[in-house]
C-alpha cells in the first residue's frame, strides 16, 4: 500500500494563486512557484493546480508557470483547467506537469478521457468532479467551476469515468468546500469503492477531518485554505495522522 497522500490545492487565476470560499470572493496568495516550493519543503506529497479561470473563459492553462514549477519542484503535480483535447494535455505534460485534471470538457465529451488515457496512459489522467448533495440523485455533478448543474448522478459518473480510463478521481464536495465543517464522509465511502485512487476534497477544517476522510476510504486528502493560511501545517498534520495509525510519508 502506498502512503496516504496530503495534497495542497492551489487555485490559479491569471498566473496567480488565489483563494475563495465556495468558488467566489477571490484573494491573491502569490506566485505558483513560491507556494509550490514552500509546500515541497514542508513535506507535501503532491500538488494540484487548478486554473479556475480557464474553463469558464474557455482558455488553456498557461505553460510558462507550469514549466517553472516543474523545474523547481521535486514532488509530482497535477494541472487542471480548460483541458479539452489531447493537444491541451500534451502541452501541459510537455511543460512538466505529471498529470492533467479534466472536468467540464470530460463531462461534455466523455471520449476525451479515453483519448487522454490512450495517449498518455491512465495514470496521467485525473478526473475532477464537483458535486452537491441532491434529493433525486444523491449527489449531482456540477460543471464549469461549480456554476452549472447537470443531470448526472455523481456516483454513476464516477464509475463511468473509471470505465473510460481515468487514473484517479479528485472529488470535491461543493456543500463542504470552504466551510471547514469536515469532508463529506458518506460521499467518500461510496466513491472509494472505485478501483482507482480517490482524492477527497472540500471541507477540511481541522486535523481530525483528514483522519476521518482517510479512514472512510480516501487515498489522498486535499485542502487549500487550511494550509495556505497556516492554520494547520503539513508536518503537524502528518504527525497527527501517523500518531493515529495512518501510513504517511514523514
Amino acid at each position: 500500500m502506498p502512503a496516504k497522500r496530503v495534497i495542497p490545492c492551489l487555485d490559479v487565476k491569471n498566473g496567480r494563486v488565489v483563494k475563495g470560499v465556495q468558488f467566489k470572493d477571490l484573494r491573491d496568495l502569490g506566485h505558483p512557484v513560491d507556494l509550490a516550493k514552500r509546500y515541497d519543503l514542508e513535506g507535501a506529497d503532491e500538488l494540484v493546480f487548478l486554473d479556475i479561470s480557464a474553463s469558464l473563459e474557455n482558455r488553456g492553462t498557461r505553460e510558462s508557470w507550469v514549466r517553472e514549477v516543474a523545474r523547481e519542484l521535486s514532488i509530482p503535480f497535477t494541472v487542471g483547467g480548460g483541458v479539452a483535447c489531447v493537444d491541451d494535455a500534451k502541452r501541459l505534460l510537455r511543460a512538466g506537469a505529471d498529470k492533467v485534471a479534466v472536468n467540464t470538457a470530460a463531462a461534455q465529451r466523455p471520449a476525451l478521457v479515453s483519448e487522454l488515457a490512450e495517449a498518455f496512459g491512465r495514470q496521467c489522467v485525473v478526473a475532477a468532479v464537483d458535486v452537491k448533495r441532491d434529493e433525486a440523485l444523491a449527489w449531482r455533478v456540477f460543471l464549469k467551476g461549480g456554476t452549472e448543474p447537470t443531470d448526472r448522478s455523481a456516483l454513476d459518473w464516477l464509475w463511468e469515468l473509471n470505465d473510460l480510463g481515468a487514473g484517479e478521481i479528485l472529488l470535491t464536495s461543493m456543500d463542504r468546500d470552504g466551510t471547514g465543517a469536515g469532508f463529506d464522509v458518506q460521499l467518500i465511502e461510496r466513491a472509494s469503492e472505485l478501483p482507482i485512487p480517490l482524492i477527497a476534497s472540500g471541507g477540511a477544517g481541522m486535523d481530525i477531518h483528514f483522519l476521518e476522510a482517510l479512514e472512510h476510504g480516501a487515498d489522498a486528502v486535499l485542502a487549500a485554505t487550511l494550509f495556505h493560511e497556516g492554520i494547520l501545517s503539513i508536518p503537524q498534520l502528518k504527525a497527527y495522522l501517523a500518531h493515529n495509525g495512518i501510513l504517511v510519508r514523514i
Partner: protein
Amino acid sequence: MITLIDYGAGNLASLEGALDRLGLEHVRAGRPDQGGETGPLVLPGVGHFETAQRALRDCGWWREIPGLVAEGRPLMGICLGLQLLAEGSEEAPKASGLGLIPGIVRRLGPGVKVPHMGWSQVQQNFPHPALPDPKGSWLYFVHSYALEPSRETVYVARHGRPFSAVEARGAVMGFQAHPEKSGPAGLLLLQASLAWMGAVTPAPEAPCN
C-alpha cells in the same frame, strides 16, 4: 554530458530541473545524432508501452540504443523507460522491449488499486556498489505495470505483491520510481547513480560554515 532521450513521452522538464539542482550538465536529444558523444543516456517515459516503443523507433533511438550500450554507454531508464528495457510487457504483448534487463513487465494487482500512484517504501534486495541501503526510504511511483523482482533486483517495493523498484545490469540501470519526483531521497539516488554512470559533477564549492 547526460543525454536525455526526447521522444515526446517523458516529463523532461522535471528531470532537467532535478539535474540542474544537482549541477549536472545535460542535453535533450530527439535523434541519436543530437546527443552527447559520451556520458550517460537517460530514457524517461510516461504512457503506453507500445506508443513509446513506436515513437522511439520513429526517431531512430530504438535501433541505436543496443549498440551504444554494447559499446559501454551507461543507460538509465525511468518508469516506462525501465519497462522498455525489459524483454516485453503485458501492456503490449505484440511489442518487444529492448531486452537489456531480463523479464516481462506485468500488470499490478489484483486486490490493489491500479495505477499504483503515490509514495511507497523501498528495501534493498541485492547490494549495488553505487546505491545505499534505502532502509525504507519513500519514493514516488506512478505506474500500472512493473517487473517482477529477480535475485539481482537492487531495490524492491510492494503494491499487493513485491515488484522491482530499481534494477541494474552492468552499466544499465532502471528506476520504476521517479527519482526526480521523490523529494530529497530521490535526488540523492539520482545523483549517486548518475555519478556511478560517469556523469561529471563540478568540483564542490568550499562550504561557507
